[in-house]
């Protein structure tokens, strides 16, 4: 019981302290850019109403999901092909090294040429930025399949889809998830930027609108929403990862216990 209490204390103490510090330091602040936390929190429910959630947050999330899903499918599929054949890998490597080094946000103006400023543009931007970490990590993961396991599967006559699903992708999945995690944070960045660049709805668009119209407390609530969104998505990702990779974490834990 004491230990649980202590843990709760450790988890909550600093955040509470920081928020209290912010509250105290900003209370009575007359600086336009740093409104009191009290004002920000009071504005929050007025700004982020159910309508706004439906009109701005939902479209953003749908675009992020669509782009991210495209990137995941394409990245894993291409990565599996490239990772499976040594020649293909050598052939593609320099080009891939270059393409992944391009900072994804510069794709926004390029893709705008092709796709205008609609949803297609934003989904394409998110997908084309997220695909690289997934692709490269899949290549590495597929390449590093344990040779003993691959040979064993072969001698048991496991081939085709079963081999792909139960041997190759299964053993590459920890790496693939590492790529997906990187891709998620890039995806959020691109979601926000593509909306700041050109949009008529979305979280990024709303926040910039507040800033341009000098609605400073409203803008702060937008920053808070973006921060919360990033946090929630990363928690969701962790939950999914723990479910999907439960076998792997278990394996590693037992390997560490008995060296």
């Amino acid at each position: 019981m004491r230990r649980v209490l202590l843990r709760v204390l450790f988890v909550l103490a600093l955040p509470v302290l920081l928020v209290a510090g912010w509250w105290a330091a900003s209370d009575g602040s007359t600086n336009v850019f740093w409104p009191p936390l009290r004002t920000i929190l009071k504005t929050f429910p007025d700004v982020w109403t159910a309508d706004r959630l439906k009109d701005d947050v939902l479209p953003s999330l749908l675009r992020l999901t669509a782009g991210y899903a495209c990137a995941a499918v394409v990245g894993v599929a291409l990565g599996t092909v490239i990772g499976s054949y040594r020649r293909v890998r050598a052939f593609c490597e320099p080009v891939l090294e270059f393409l992944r080094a391009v900072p994804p946000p510069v794709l926004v103006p390029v893709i705008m040429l092709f796709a205008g400023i609609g949803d297609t543009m934003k989904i394409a931007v998110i997908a084309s930025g997220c695909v690289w970490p997934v692709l490269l990590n899949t290549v590495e993961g597929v390449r590093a399949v344990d040779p003993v396991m691959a040979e064993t599967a072969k001698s048991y006559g496991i081939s085709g889809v079963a081999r792909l699903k139960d041997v190759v992708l299964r053993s590459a999945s920890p790496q693939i998830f590492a790529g997906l995690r990187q891709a998620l944070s890039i995806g959020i960045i691109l979601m926000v930027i593509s909306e700041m660049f050109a949009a008529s709805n979305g979280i990024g668009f709303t926040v910039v609108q507040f800033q341009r119209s000098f609605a400073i407390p409203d803008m702060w609530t937008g920053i808070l929403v973006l921060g919360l969104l990033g946090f929630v998505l990363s928690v969701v990702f962790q939950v999914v990862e723990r479910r999907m990779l439960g076998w792997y974490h278990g394996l590693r834990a037992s390997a560490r216990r008995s060296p």
Partner: protein
Amino acid sequence: MKGQTAVNAALGAAGLVVFLALGEAVPRLGLVKEAYFPPASRIADALADEFADDTFWTALGDTLTGWALGLLIASGAGIVAGIVISVVPYLREATASTIEFLRPIPSVALIPLAVLLYGTELESVLILVVYASFWQVLVQVLYGVQDVDPVAEETARSYGLGTWARVRHVLWPTALPYVMTGVRLAAAVALILAVTAELVIGAPGLGQRIAVAQNSQAVPEMYALVVVTGLLGLLINVGARAVERRALAWHQSVRGEVAV
């Protein structure tokens, strides 16, 4: 082994050639509009024009300044914070939840604030770059410190080494490979955020030049600048890996790589 490397290099070169040839052929054959995607040769021409232009080099310098300063501040702060958090008792447990909460916050959320506070000044770029890359370094330092061999730590304690000596001789060498990984990741992230800040906020640099090229419909120039940012990213990745290998020449993970 050597023959294999040569074959790989030849294949890689062939891949690049095919990539460039596709970039030339696809617009020429009319598969996509030339106005949207100019042939590779026209992009190369535009690139040559950029290289001859003084303002291009100023923009490149601006981008690199933002990147380097931001990376330096973030790395320094990340390393110091990481070591302090792991050395001071209970600090690690107390900060864990806060770090887990702050880390996934997308740094682009700070764009409106940066615009209000600093407009298109360098500080705007620095806010975004430092926020994004700080966490990369900090988290790696914390991982690295966790990896310290308990026997080495206990030995150092029983020989009466003080806190500072233990940080210097036990903790730091163990954490260094992780620190290097963190700085390498941070270098890539810092470039992304530096270009983003220029593109979205309009701080001077390559990103702002891309935005200008886009607004004035100078499509080949825009592609040329995108290629420049890609090359820059490539140089940073390759450079960071080289630095890592040099600084860690004594470490197993690097020695293993060379031996194979």
